[in-house]
């Protein structure tokens, strides 16, 4: 047997040598190209825009087009550019710490996003579990149903919730008619409405990673746990849940990260009483036309999100390692 292996190895190396040097170079080039494309994408559509935003955040607001100063350029030669660079300052960042509005908005956003994430997990886990345990023939249909809402515009779906949640809306009419309540519930324009909106909108992002983690789990592990004296509930917490953790982490981050900066849902469902950073950003940019401050808000938001994103990547790397 070892002889055969040696023969096989020699044959394959001979085949490698037989390939022309040019062909191998070409292969290497294609390999590189495949890696270069996503990097180019990131440089052009993430890194460069970020540098621009970062530069604006260090500028001062001005009544001009564009509405900030200095505008960097080589119009006055190299020394002119250096002069312009000297005008940049971190004033806007200091401003963010001085006005409680911004700090409150950041903190509220993180809290709202965190609560929404937990709620989404609570709703999403049973759904994903049920899907993973459904007969194999039924699973593609169930998966389709989870993705189905994406076929309608996100904006329209959030608008639809206004119709459901408003004082004279569907929900209140139903509850009033059935006699559960005497007075309409005030849900619209509260944080409750924001939670409902986020849980509803981001549910698929929670369900899909959870489903993929639960679906590949070997059911005989649960049987083994039961066989060793573990009742079903305990088997869930000791076996199923720990093994689905990569899916839980992925789902939570996929919900938490976009929820922190969410604008549409708090704007449409949260009304003017609720404060979230996405709305603050929008106001600074469009109402106040203060590009530098809104850029600073965006940069801080990004830094705030980098921590969970890095956690996410580490969790993914660990999960991949375990699969090996």
């Amino acid at each position, binding site marked *: 047997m070892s002889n055969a292996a040696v023969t096989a190895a020699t044959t394959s190396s001979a085949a490698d040598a037989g390939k022309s040097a040019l062909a191998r170079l070409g292969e290497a080039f294609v390999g590189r190209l495949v890696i270069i494309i996503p990097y180019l994408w990131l440089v052009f559509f993430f890194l460069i825009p970020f540098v621009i935003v970062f530069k604006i955040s260090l500028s001062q607001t001005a009544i001009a087009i564009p509405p900030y100063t200095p505008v960097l350029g080589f119009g006055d030669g190299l020394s002119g550019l250096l002069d312009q660079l000297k005008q940049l300052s971190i004033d806007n960042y200091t401003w963010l710490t001085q006005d409680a509005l911004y700090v409150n908005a950041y903190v509220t956003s993180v809290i709202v996003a965190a609560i929404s994430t937990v709620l989404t997990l609570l709703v999403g886990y049973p759904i994903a579990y049920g899907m993973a345990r459904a007969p194999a023939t039924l699973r593609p249909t169930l998966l389709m149903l989870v993705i189905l809402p994406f076929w309608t515009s996100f904006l329209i779906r959030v608008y639809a919730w206004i119709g459901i949640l408003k004082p004279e809306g569907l929900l209140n009419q139903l509850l009033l008619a059935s006699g559960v309540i005497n007075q309409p519930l005030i849900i619209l324009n509260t944080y409750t409405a924001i939670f409902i909106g986020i849980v509803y909108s981001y549910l698929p992002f929670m369900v899909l990673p959870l489903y993929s983690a639960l679906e590949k789990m070997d059911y005989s592990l649960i*049987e083994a746990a039961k066989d060793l004296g573990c009742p079903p509930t305990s088997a869930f917490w000791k076996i199923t849940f720990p093994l689905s953790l990569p899916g839980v982490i992925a789902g939570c981050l996929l919900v938490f990260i976009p929820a922190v900066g969410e604008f549409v849902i708090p704007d449409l469902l949260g009304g003017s009483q609720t404060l979230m950073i996405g709305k603050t950003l929008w106001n600074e940019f469009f109402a106040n036309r203060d590009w530098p401050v809104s850029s600073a808000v965006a940069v801080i938001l990004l830094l705030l999100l980098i921590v969970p994103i890095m956690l996410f990547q580490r969790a993914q790397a660990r999960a991949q390692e375990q699969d090996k």
Partner: protein
Amino acid sequence: MKSLGSIRRDFAPWNDPNAKPYIQFDNVTKKFGDFTAVNNLSLTIFEREFFALLGASGCGKSTLLRMLAGFEEPTAGRILLDGQDLRGIPPYRRPVNMMFQSYALFPHMTVENNIAFGLKQDGMPKPEIAARVGEMLKLVKLEQFAKRKPHQLSGGQRQRVALARSVAKRPKVLLLDEPLGALDKKLREETQFELMDLQQSLGLTFVVVTHDQEEAMTMADRIAIIDKGEVMQVATPAEVYEAPGSRFVAGFVGNVNMFEGKIARGDAGAASIDTGNGITIRTENAGDAAIGAAVAFAIRPEKIKVSSKKPDGAVNAIEGEVYDIAYLGDMTVYHVRLDDGHVVRASTMNAARITEDPLSWNDRAWVSFRPDAGVVLTR
């Protein structure tokens, strides 16, 4: 003392009419929708027995094991363990443990935590758990792997962890579902003997499911041959091999030559069988088969002698032509085509290194066997 096969063991509670059965399948039927996996099956297993359920895949043997473990409930009939009806008792309250075919080791736990899992469930005190886990690790020779995760182990090591985990709780009965199925041949043979030693030293009752007849023959005290959800025969390995109860069992376990025919003449267990092709076989093992009954005469290859000349005084000697020879080192297998077209398989131990007058392809040859060498099968 004369005995079937070449081994004799004192442990034989199934021959003792006063022995108390330990596990009883009592007219058990299991249906999955329209499919009947187990059909009105009854079976008795004794304490400390190494019992094998042998059958092809899909014959219902795994379903029997899963019903014993509590993962399936019988559609009809009952299963008793030590006199207690198991119906309605969930798997986590049954005093049986199972070693899974896939091993089902918990991937997120270390080897020692896998082994300790069942003990922790029972609320055993920590120092006792540690002692028991150490003992188990020693038993399966994995002491230095205690802190590893399952994915850092080889297939054979995982098998041992699964075994250690399933015996750690000292169950009344250990169920083994194809325990050696995932191991390579050599490791499988070693592990067979280790399993037997383990069963002896722990004094547990083992019920093993396997499709590998050699494995069942090696390890088990008794074998139940299962086909289409029914028991074909329950007997010791020697009985199954030397005295199969039916054509199916004779063909399923080991190699066999089968001659179909009719009982032509008989007295006191001895008979002549007319195969209708001018061949008449004389046997002493006709049992109570009546004259004229359609029977099969089954004879194992190693009980047939092949020679170039007709042996002197042979009761059964048939002439034919050597059709195929396979030299396997320890033995040689001959395929001899009889003059009626029937191909007979015969195997000879190569007891001597040098053979005088060896047979070759297309040589005329005689196959001969003693009148007590084969069995007559009526079913």
